[in-house]
């Protein structure tokens, strides 16, 4: 394992200390329980957005705390959901009296820990609503399983709901917006190499030199199938086809596109992927209203990318364009 760390046990704490020191204007980092709070929270009268999940996906979620996005984030250990006491403390600290929204990716651990926290929060009389993100079409959905994973749509929901909350939208509106964005989004990812969890000290999986893992999760969980490596253009087709099918997108539709890097894939390759993707969408007659290209929801140093499409409309585009000022995403402010 080759990492710039001191001790696998303290990577999260040390990295957060660095984040806090780098961005005192944006956020504050708390330990025990561990959470990251927007510098000017609580904002009275504003719906508060709280998210969280395992660490190792930076900048998500801690890098999305700030104006126009999250009020607080709860980072768990690497790839491990946070505990209820973290979520409880973050929720209380972020609460501005207008209600709190938990943005939760649909992983069993995240769901249970946020649920337990919501039960505890309820005792304090804070009204908490949940937006559950489950946009990963790599995973067969079924009533009898844990359902789909939450991936790329998380970033979009946090941006868009963050903009709505910043603009003063009430709790119910923020929640229904988040649910609508999640439903109108679909994602699929691919890995070219594994990540290495610091505590495990060895790669989570092995891929041969000519293999890639299609439908990879953001924790190195195996996906749909292992297939042979192929040109970017074909990879894009394999990723986007199930997304198009899932959202039933076609001629005349427009989308917000998110090409996400998993960590080790160079930005130049992500733009190259975006180039192939826009060609494909052009062929389909689908317009791109906005796009985001970069490593925003990573899986440590995994090589690969994911594609997320969100069916867009004027409201979503104007929320997208609204100012955001966080360590990981910033414009207009």
């Amino acid at each position, binding site marked *: 394992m080759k990492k710039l760390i001191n001790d696998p046990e303290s990577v999260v704490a040390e990295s957060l200390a660095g984040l806090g020191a780098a961005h005192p204007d944006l956020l504050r980092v708390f330990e025990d329980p561990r959470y990251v709070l927007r510098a000017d929270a609580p904002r009275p009268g504003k719906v508060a957005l709280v998210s969280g999940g395992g660490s190792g996906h930076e900048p998500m979620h801690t890098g999305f705390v700030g104006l126009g996005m999250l009020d607080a984030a709860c980072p*768990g250990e690497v790839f*491990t959901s*946070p505990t209820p*006491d973290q979520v409880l403390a973050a929720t209380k600290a972020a609460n501005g009296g207008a209600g709190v929204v938990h943005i939760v990716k649909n992983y*069993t651990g995240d769901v*249970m820990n946020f649920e337990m926290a919501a039960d505890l929060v309820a005792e304090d009389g804070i009204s908490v609503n949940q937006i559950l993100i489950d946009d990963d079409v790599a995973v067969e959905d079924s009533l009898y*399983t*844990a359902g789909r994973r939450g991936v790329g749509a998380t970033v979009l929901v946090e941006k868009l709901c963050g903009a709505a909350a910043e603009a003063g939208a009430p709790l119910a509106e923020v929640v229904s917006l988040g649910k609508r964005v999640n439903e109108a989004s679909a994602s699929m990812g691919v890995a070219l190499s594994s990540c290495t969890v610091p505590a495990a000290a060895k790669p989570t999986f092995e891929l041969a030199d000519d293999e890639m893992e299609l439908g990879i999760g953001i924790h190195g*969980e*195996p996906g749909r199938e292992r297939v042979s490596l192929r040109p970017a253009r074909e990879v894009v087709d394999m990723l986007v086809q199930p997304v198009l099918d899932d959202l039933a997108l076609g001629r005349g539709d427009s989308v917000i596109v998110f090409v996400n890097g998993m960590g080790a894939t160079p930005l130049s390759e992500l733009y190259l992927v975006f180039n192939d993707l826009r060609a494909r969408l052009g062929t389909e007659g689908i317009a791109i209203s906005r796009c985001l290209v970069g490593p925003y929801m990573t899986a440590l140093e995994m090589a690969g990318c994911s594609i997320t499409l969100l069916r867009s409309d004027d409201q979503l585009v104007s929320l997208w364009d609204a100012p955001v000022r966080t360590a990981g995403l910033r414009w207009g402010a």
Partner: protein
Amino acid sequence: MSDTFDLQSAYRWIEGFAEAVGAHKEELTDLDAAIGDGDHGTNMDRGMRAVMAKLGANSSADLGDLFKTVGMTLVSTVGGASGPLFGTFFLALGKAWPNKETLSADELLSGYSQAVAAVIARGRAERGDKTMVDALLAAQDAWEMALGGTSGDSETLSVVAAAAAEGAEQTVPLVARKGRASYLGKRSAGHKDPGAATVALMMAAAADARTGE
């Protein structure tokens, strides 16, 4: 071996479980890497070390108190799926035995059954979903059978532990329908569920705690 389960047995159980998790940490993580995200051993080990630190610092007044501490500590240090689930298990034991200092064989089984039910309520997994619930229920079945027969004999917990291990083993061919492994669909078959393997360690520690008396 006496018929009662007391604070000392409970402490030995938890200690033995913590040791077993520490010793099998890498193995549990490897099981999780195959069909999950490779953190189960690390998660449980972090939690059980925190539990031992907590128990070392404060002595528990009774079994209810002790298991509540274990459960709360797991909930607040493990995270992931296993944190709430093992946390819920021990919190339920604590709830089942308020102010108790010793338990009869029947009380022990009934507390265990309530804890298993709490885990199922929390995670909504059914038998055969390839989760820790499979090992928990296999142990419960064997336990009920044993108590229904010659009842409460000194070998009961060994039989229960063996059943938990067998229950974990039987998750191998299954296709996961809950938890992270379910994302794998058919590809999850052929691997043992890590949470079930941890349950086997937990029940073996329970048996050892009593044999050691």
